[in-house]
């Protein structure tokens, strides 16, 4: 970490060519990654990321430089090199950095570096045993364990100076079920903004068995039919569909340059009135939470869509300049190697009134997606695609046979209009979200929802 005088000198050097805003981001992060394959610990690697990011604005122009040099002269040199790209008129400015003390909203009990590696390994073995022994069709189980301890300093020419620590722990359980030449996979990847207590409190049996059960179920499933059907998407990681289909389109990254279908539509009805969509970086100890964003702004609860009406966007400082608005505490980055930009934290559809049982019972024929896989979206067009990891046919208001190989495709804003039931069982799932400022931990969430029609691609034909 850098001392205050050093940071002040870097800001001064960064503004030497007339920039109107400068920011210093210092990161010191310890990582542990352990992999267990086929019952044996195959890899254990740990290390330290360390570096400094320097950002300068001049109106809407932005310059970003980063380095993991740590000596004074070299850092000042990087700041001056970055400043060279700004062609302004240096003005007078006085820098008064005031160190802000944060109240930690995400208390940690066991910091990862204070926990012996053997404890982490023992948990992984336990998970392996549960998943492997779930069923004789399980041919392979891989367990990944990951923790990170990130300390950051964020300071800028407006006088802000904060320090924060983000601690995250995650398990990745991946299974393969096979019969002859056929293989199907299952996975579960729970994580939190917590230390080792996350693992101690976790229901290992539930997560391990679910990962195994999905693979076995899919091995015994038929190919999914294709066509346009009502689709019921269950809670938790099911929220990924709206993360991709709507969330990304609400980020200033695409809204500010009017590359989003949601640009200039605040106040308009963009979804049925049963839909309320929220991004909340303050949820205690959740995977996508932090005390401050990566520009040092306090995180907050941002209501994006309320009862179907578009209320606002996720905005970072540069996006705010372009849009003539304020930051919403939503600026994030993977590491010092990325300039931060507007991103989601924990994003979810608020719970509605229907029970999951009612939703199923009200569906004559359709697809039930119990677990979603990943997907992607083209923010310019809103077109998305998603894999269903565990799917079923719904027939006569009942969950019937499992189906595999299903992909959902459609257009985000249009799908949003077709949500016709929202359940009452809100839950969150954990993911890594990749975009302009790198890969960051983000929660997706929702209760069970039903969409009246989505195009389902499967291999069975009609």
């Amino acid at each position, binding site marked *: 970490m850098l001392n205050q005088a050093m940071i002040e000198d870097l800001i001064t050097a960064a503004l030497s060519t007339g920039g109107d805003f400068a920011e210093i981001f210092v990161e010191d992060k310890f990582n542990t990654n352990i992999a267990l394959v086929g019952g044996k*610990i195959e890899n254990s690697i*740990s290390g330290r990321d360390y570096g400094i990011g320097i950002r300068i604005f001049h109106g809407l122009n932005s310059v970003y430089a980063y*380095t*993991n040099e740590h000596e004074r002269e070299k850092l000042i040199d990087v700041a001056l090199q970055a400043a060279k790209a700004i062609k302004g008129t240096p003005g007078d400015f006085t820098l008064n950095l005031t160190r802000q003390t944060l109240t930690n909203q995400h208390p940690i009990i066991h910091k990862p570096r204070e926990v012996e590696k053997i404890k982490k390994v023992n948990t992984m073995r336990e998970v392996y045993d549960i998943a492997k022994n779930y069923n004789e069709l399980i041919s392979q189980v891989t367990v990944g364990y990951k923790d990170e301890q990130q300390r950051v300093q964020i300071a800028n020419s407006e006088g802000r100076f904060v320090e924060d620590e983000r601690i995250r722990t995650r398990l990745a359980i991946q299974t393969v079920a096979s019969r002859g030449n056929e293989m199907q996979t299952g996975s579960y990847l729970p994580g939190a903004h917590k230390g080792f207590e996350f693992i101690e409190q976790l229901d290992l049996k539930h997560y391990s068995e679910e990962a195994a059960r999905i693979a076995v179920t899919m091995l015994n499933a038929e190919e999914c039919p*294709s066509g346009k059907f009502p689709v019921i998407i269950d809670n938790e990681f099911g929220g990924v569909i709206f993360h991709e289909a709507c969330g990304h389109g609400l980020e200033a990254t695409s809204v500010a*340059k009017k590359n989003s279908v949601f640009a200039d539509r605040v106040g308009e009805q963009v979804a049925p009135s049963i839909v309320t969509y929220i991004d909340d970086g303050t949820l205690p100890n959740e995977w996508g939470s932090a005390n401050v964003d990566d520009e040092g702004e306090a995180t907050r609860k941002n209501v994006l869509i309320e009862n179907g009406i578009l209320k606002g966007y996720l905005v970072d400082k540069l996006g705010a300049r372009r849009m003539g608005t304020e930051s919403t505490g939503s600026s994030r980055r993977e590491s010092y190697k990325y300039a931060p930009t507007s991103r989601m934290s924990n994003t979810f559809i608020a719970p509605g009134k229907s029970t999951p049982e009612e939703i199923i019972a009200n569906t004559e024929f359709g697809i039930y997606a119990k677990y979603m896989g990943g997907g992607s979206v*083209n923010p310019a067009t809103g077109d998305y695609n998603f894999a269903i990891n565990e799917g079923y046919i719904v027939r006569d208001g009942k969950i019937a046979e499992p189906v595999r190989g*299903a992909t959902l495709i459609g257009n985000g804003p249009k799908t949003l209009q077709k949500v016709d039931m929202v359940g009452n069982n809100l839950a969150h799932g954990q993911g890594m979200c990749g975009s302009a400022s790198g890969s960051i931990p983000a929660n997706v969430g929702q209760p069970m929802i039903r969409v009246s029609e989505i*195009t389902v*691609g499967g291999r069975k034909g009609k």
Partner: protein
Amino acid sequence: MDILTFKENLFVKGAELGFSDMELYFQKNGKFSTKIFKGDVDSYNIAIDGGVSFRGIFEGKMGYAYTEKIDEESISFLVKEAKENLAMIDSEDPEVIFAGSEHYDELDLYSEELASVSNEDKIELLKKVEAECFALSEKISSVNYCLLESHDSEKMIANTKGLEKREKGNVVYIFVSVVAKEGEDIKSASKLVLTRDFSAFDPKAIAKEVVEEALSTLGATSIKSGDYPVILKNKAAASLLQVFSTAFSADNVQKGKSRLANKLEEAIGNSLITIVDDPFKEDGFMSRSFDSEGVATKRLNVVEHGVLKTYLHNLKTAAKDNVASTGHGTKGSYKGTITVAPSNLFIEPGEKSYDEMIAGEEEAVIITDLQGLHSGANAISGDFSLAANGYLVKGGKIERPINQITVAGNFFTMLEEVEVVGGDLKFALPAGGYVGSPSLKVKSLAVAGE
């Protein structure tokens, strides 16, 4: 602290802790990237970064640790963490620090000329690309990505067995994405051009290709579901091969994660299919004369006329199969452990041009773009079901653009059902390896639409 002093001190400290063989992997990168938006410099990034990875053998096990902070304090951190890490390892596989290959090819991966191009010149060129895109058609509503990035990197492997290898490289690429709009219809297209020769960039040609592609997809609609003969255009075929190239890794084969297990010397595809891994390929993003374990690399036929000739090996997987390493020991960066990955891997191009392939079809679907490859494709089983865009071919001509479809099949079955291999080799965005393919005509795939 300079890297050679760091290495000396590190090996001394490691020996004190009981490490027998040790290795230092060092990487240093310089980067410049810029984006243009509506004629202005939208972002301007510079970076100097790097890091070191230490690994060492203690009582037969290999321990790894890395750091980005190269200072005195890091030396004890690295050896202590590496020793803790190896104590967790169960694997009984023999571990080796490599003394070196007999012969290494010299590769010219660094262009002095490219290194001397100023950032201003790069920006000017990129501004031209954006301007050309807008000039070509009024339907181009935005150039939502207009990016240039140049990299230079230096890596070094040095170990206590006496190996010390260095390699330097640089590269520059442009990535453009345009949005075309007609009424309510919005379509986009993107293009990547990668080279070591800056003068090879032709802003007009880059703009023309990407704009024409976007315009040609306007008005796209879905088609009737059914089984269609399919022409997978080069970019789409390459992105598909990239996902399934993990099946060639001996590591995946040995761990029961590849459909190609026990298939050596057997036909796994149509005889038209030859798959090459060429670490010496000019303009290959993954070109290298030695791999991340210090093993000399060489050009290799992985599949020859449909027959699987070899898996891709690192030292460890090779020892298990009792063969020599093929030079595919790969470390994504100093943060990773040694895995197996291709260098520049591609399906060898055939004779027919893309246009000739189209002319030969009475009714077919051309797939130009596949989405959701990280989720809709199962690298182990070979099954895929992916969102796609493309064109409908009727009577040997492109009739209309199509979208909102999914295409599904099995990659391994598809290799057997390839009927024509085009001559238009193209590479996908580098991810792990740099993977390419020409356009492929496949007998039939399931398309879901209306």
